[in-house]
């Protein structure tokens, strides 16, 4: 078993001891889960120096399904995991977020066994998504991700958890169905060229996207569904395929107008689940766009740059405006995610090196920052079970350390230089302003979102922390609103340090992305 497989299935292996823990020893569960996540993080960290020729650092490949289709040839589905700088960054992010989520679940008393089982299953599926390079394997992990998330929201969530869970489920399933349509078409479009000239249909994305690893490049069969010039219902098949996949991943990202599952899911989800949702799950959307959507239909991607950028900028501005009108802290943070994930689309659409670096960097940066923001919201909710911003005030006086950590989180989110989100935004704008594929008005409008972002974050900060704490309205709160506990520090400080590190000295991290981003650009523009 290779390192990548261990990375994916380590959480599944940890599910066994979790199952065996007797009910009266339920305190052990969290330690097992934490150990598994930390071990995964450690393994992922050990892969950072991994050498590899070209962009791919590690590839693990095994035959999985070989279906003979008689005279039509055969269909080969592979167990194919591959790691490059982009997936490494996201795997690291996932394992870190999972560790933090376990810490945030430390006091999970309600059905802890089922809870940690689901969390570990989610971990496996997320890492699997980021490593799978066979389209079908990717799809299976993608689907698998949905189930634990559905139950984590639906069972451990807030008051309207069932509504939120179902909404999340149906939205995401709709995305999956879209992806399935394309999957079905791609399944019989590429030939890996087997022995004796028979057609071997393949879903190997390494071969399909011509990255030179995992065997020779696959050939796009003429006359297949997605061959150039083919039409479906009178529409260009490749454009259609691109759009269908774009919609599938835009739901996950989420992009406006496919975003309304996000605020509900976030508000109802418990804090650790929100952390994973914002920190990792949304990144699957961006990752899918990079790997699958642009990977399969690069020509359509180039042609549709203006549209993708437009959707991105719309999301940036719309998300920020809606966030500004929110009174619930978690909802505001959720809409800020909508706004910030628009950068990913804008950066990718620029098809400039800087923009693509920025898009990938934003996936990681937003993961760290939004996780921090949801933990920050969780701190208040844990204490007084209230998220209405207006109900607080004067918290500097009661919780100075919390105020300071929140200051870092909010300023990171509004893109202050020296903190990681700024680097991502800078690179995205750099790419978008110098790109000839998107009209300059898009990034010019997008820049307005840095003003809007500052407006809602600072307003929330002022309402929460400035002024005098009003004991008349909420006298019972004064004793409950205590400053951060050591466990909360343990979750927040690593995030803050990473946010600083990636913001002050992003060079080393960006260098790891160099080979895959260049290869990706060469493929898409080639």
């Amino acid at each position, binding site marked *: 078993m290779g390192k990548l497989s261990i990375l994916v299935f380590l959480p599944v292996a940890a599910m066994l001891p979790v199952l065996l823990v007797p009910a009266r020893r339920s305190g052990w569960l969290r330690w097992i889960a934490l150990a598994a996540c930390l071990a995964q993080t450690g393994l992922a960290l050990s892969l950072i120096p991994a050498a590899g020729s070209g962009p791919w650092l590690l590839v693990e490949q095994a035959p999985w399904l070989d279906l003979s289709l008689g005279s039509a040839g055969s269909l080969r589905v592979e167990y194919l995991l591959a790691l490059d700088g982009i997936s490494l960054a996201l795997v690291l992010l996932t394992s870190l977020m999972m560790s933090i989520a376990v810490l945030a679940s430390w006091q999970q008393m309600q059905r802890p066994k089922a809870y940690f089982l689901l969390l570990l299953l989610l971990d496996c599926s997320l890492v699997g998504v980021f490593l799978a390079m066979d389209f079908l394997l990717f799809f299976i992990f993608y689907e698998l991700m949905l189930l634990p998330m559905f139950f984590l929201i639906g*069972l451990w969530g807030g008051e309207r958890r069932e509504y939120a869970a179902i909404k999340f489920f149906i939205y995401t399933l709709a995305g999956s169905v879209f992806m399935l349509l394309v999957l079905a078409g791609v399944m019989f479009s590429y030939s890996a060229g087997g022995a004796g000239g028979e057609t071997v249909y393949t879903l190997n994305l390494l071969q399909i996207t011509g990255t030179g690893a995992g065997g020779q490049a696959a050939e796009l069969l003429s006359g297949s569904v997605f061959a150039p010039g083919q039409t479906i219902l009178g529409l260009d098949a490749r454009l259609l395929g691109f759009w269908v996949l774009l919609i599938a991943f835009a739901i996950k990202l989420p992009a406006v107008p496919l975003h309304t599952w996000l605020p509900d899911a976030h508000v109802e989800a418990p804090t650790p689940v929100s952390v994973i949702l914002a920190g990792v799950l949304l990144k699957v959307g961006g990752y899918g766009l990079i790997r699958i959507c642009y990977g399969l239909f690069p020509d359509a991607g180039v042609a549709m740059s203006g549209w993708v950028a437009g959707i991105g900028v719309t999301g940036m501005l719309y998300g920020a405006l809606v966030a500004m009108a929110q009174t619930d802290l978690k909802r505001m943070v959720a809409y800020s995610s909508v706004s910030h994930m628009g950068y990913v689309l804008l950066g990718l659409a620029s098809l400039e090196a800087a923009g693509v670096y920025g898009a990938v960097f934003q996936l990681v940066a937003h993961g760290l920052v939004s996780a921090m923001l949801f933990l920050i919201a969780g701190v208040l909710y844990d204490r007084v079970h209230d998220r209405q911003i207006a109900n607080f005030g004067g918290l*500097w006086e009661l919780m100075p350390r919390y105020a300071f950590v929140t200051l870092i989180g909010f300023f990171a989110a509004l893109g202050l230089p020296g903190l990681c989100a700024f680097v991502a935004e800078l690179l995205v704008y750099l790419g978008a302003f110098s790109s000839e594929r998107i009209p300059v008005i898009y990034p010019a409008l997008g820049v307005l979102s840095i003003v809007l972002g500052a407006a809602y974050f600072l307003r929330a900060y002022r309402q929460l922390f400035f002024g005098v704490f009003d004991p008349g309205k909420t006298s019972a709160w004064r004793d409950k609103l205590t400053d951060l506990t050591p466990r909360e520090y343990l979750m927040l400080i690593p995030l803050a340090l990473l946010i600083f590190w990636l913001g002050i000295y992003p060079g080393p991290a960006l260098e790891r992305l160099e080979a895959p981003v260049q290869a990706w650009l060469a493929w898409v523009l080639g």
Partner: protein
Amino acid sequence: MNPADGLPASPGELRIALLALGMPLALLLGGLLILLAGRRLRAQGGYLALLMMGLAFIASLLLLAAVWPAGTVRAALPWIELPGLSIPLRWRIDGLAALMLALVSGIAALVHLYSLAYLRNERHLSRYWAYLALFCAAMMGIVLMEHLIPVFMCWELVGMSSYLLIGFWTERAQAGRAAQAAFLVNRIGDAGLLAGILLLTGMAGSGDLGRLHGLAGSGALGIAPGWQTAIALLLFLGCMGKSAQVPLHLWLPGAMEGPTPVSALIHAATMVAAGVYLLGRIWFLMPPQAEAFIAVTGGATALLAALSALGQWDIKRVLAYSTISQLGLMMLGMGAGARDMALLHLVTHAFFKCALFLAAGVVVHAMAHAGASDPQDDPQDMRQMGGLRRRMPWTFALYLLPMLALSGLPLTSGFLSKDGILAGAWTQALHSGGWMWPAALAGSAAALLTPVYMMRQLQLIFGGPGRGLQVEDAEPLMRIPLLLLAPGSLWLLVAFSPFDAAQSPLLAGIAPAAGGGLHAEPAVHAWVSAASALGVAAGLWLGYRARAQARSRERRGLLQGLYLEAAAERAVQRPVLELAALAARFDRRAVDGLVNAIGRLAVHPRGRGPSLAALASWLDTRWVDGLINGLAALAARTGRAARRLQGGQVQRYLLYMLAAVLLAVCWLVWKGGGI
């Protein structure tokens, strides 16, 4: 990497480069240390901060000696180095940069000394010192950095530290509001600056000022004239935000909510000058149309702010408006091409304005102690003051001198630099005409109004009969910085000749960086000097005469800053908030409403009644054929799962669903063969 990248080879230059970069880094580390060890350090935190700033001042004097007047040392370290994307941290020490470093660290050191006394009884002082260190480091970054992207980063950090310092008294809701307004207004400018920098970087292929200067010099910038103007205006928008130009000046009067030493250092002497300084670095990117715009903006700002200053009752707000007015004059100079004079005015203004604020702080401090029994009294309201000159002779003297410099009386530094600007503006107006005429007029009017409102203020605070206030004069610790700053108001700061700024030795260092300056015609200069000397005398007399009615006469329009704030609220803030509310309603009703409607159509909430799920399940049983059916089956399963979920039997569906999805996939794989 080209030869300019990397550290300089000669040890002498290397030492200079490292010393310059080391200053802000040491300040940041020191600030962090004070912040983290705040509890344990207590008062020592302040001494440590003062020591750091003093060392920084000495270091900048060393730098000044090393490069003055026309030497330049460049060095670079990589920040982001990727193929096709290079953002180096390149910094440059030349005469102007060294002068600014000395100005920032020198004034900061005095303000630290003053703060030790002024804020002695404050809690959370470690935060204060740390914020100040962050501010000074970021400000030094703006001064030193040569690539525009690092400049922008420091630019924003300056804004952030200003936010923190304005909001230092977190228990005051009003301080929070002012801090927020300051950051947001600055961010509007920053958004423009960022867009301008990135457009420039994209079109000219570099954001490095040294390289851009070379390109512009040889006419090889490669930017269409229209775009050049657009970029210039966007860059200027950033300068407008930081340097409080109309209409982005609205944050500065509010910024007076911060502690007075902060107002002196940041919102009078240094940060607000950053816009002027940046213009002094990017002047070669400004086409004539943009320069005219800058001049007009500057003139309008100077005049509007001077008018507003006439009606203020708050001691600090008068000074705030006068700062805006003086910044407007500097911008006018920049636009008129008298860049060296504008930068000279920046230096002289820093001295006398800082002194004024610190002296005002002494008054406020004394008033607060005198009125400690009655918290209703606003210690900053000048109507409560009067006759203080007898009880506070030191402060009176140390207020009078910088106030005369600000007014522009001959023999002061302000007279020299301000007249340099006005002479430049009038020369430019005579030469190129057009928009320079109203700009020069407005600037001159502002210069004539300055002695009026300053004399009015002096009268309100110190003049008239005593009001029996039990106030004490400044304690020595607060007096020392004033004693050191106030003499800077004399002409000797600028030049030996009290009538000709052009002979100032300071210009030898400023002019090379600012691309020389406009040589005002001697005749124009003579006329301007004579007129302004007379005008200032008349203005002072007017202000002095006005004292009788001063205390009672309320000029509401002027007090409200000509209603510009209300206008901005109505024209910008409210529409944006309404748009936000509209977007949120749209999101809830239309976007989400549509989703819910589709949901109801697909799966009936109770599982009965007509819905797509029911239809699909019927199709599923009757028409099992093809891909469409598979999708419908999935939808139906979802519907059923939803129904069961409400029944409460949820856990075991994990397996069912997993199986369902896997089955569907396998089935599709299998069926797919027949397509």
